[in-house]
């Protein structure tokens, strides 16, 4: 019985190999912008770590995002969601980077 369990476990591990990989390179105008983008999106936790791993690296002015998942379906969902977030970060940087600091007061 224990041998059968080990074989099943091994089969499951083989099936769960994170061998579907997409690497996205996103160049920014400056190193600072790439770093802001990396720190903003890296804060989101990865929920199913046995199905997908996500890595964000800021190298110079380039943000590199590496997705490794068990299937095309899993990486498709993760990538599309991440790109949506990065687009929001880009729009925010464009609106606020380089602007004078503003203190917003809470309405009473």
């Amino acid at each position, binding site marked *: 019985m224990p041998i059968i369990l080990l074989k099943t476990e091994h089969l499951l591990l083989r099936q769960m190999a994170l*061998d*579907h*990989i*997409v*690497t*996205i*390179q*996103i*160049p*920014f*105008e400056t190193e600072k*912008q790439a770093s802001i983008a990396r720190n903003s999106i890296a804060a989101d936790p990865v929920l199913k770590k046995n199905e997908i791993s996500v890595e964000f690296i800021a190298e110079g002015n380039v943000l590199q995002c590496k997705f490794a998942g068990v*299937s*095309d*379906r899993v*990486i*498709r969902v993760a*990538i*599309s969601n991440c*790109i*949506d977030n*990065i*687009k929001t970060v*880009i*729009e925010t*940087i*464009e609106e606020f980077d380089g602007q004078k600091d503003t203190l917003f007061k809470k309405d009473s």
Partner: protein
Amino acid sequence: MTTLVPTAIYTSPTEPIEVKLIPGVGPHSTDGKTTQISEIVLKAGGEDRDKPSAAKDTPLGNLRAQLTTLQDKLNEFLTQKMLNKRKLEDDDIERRILDDGVDEDSD
């Protein structure tokens, strides 16, 4: 004006040679094909209230538009891979039934 072009590289057991995806020649827009609300909802008069703002004519604005095109290309590419895999699995079941005369659904 500086052009910032995002790129993507794909590999998998069925695609050992790298597939490179680029936004390509434009026009590019922030209104992606694969990120809109369902066509059925649109036809029924629904409105996309989360529609992204249009890209400004700046390096970051263009990057956001090009990233949307790349997102569309990745979504279409990966969806096609999923459909191909499903077809292969269906074909395999059909072949096994025809070759062996085994009905997979029977007890």
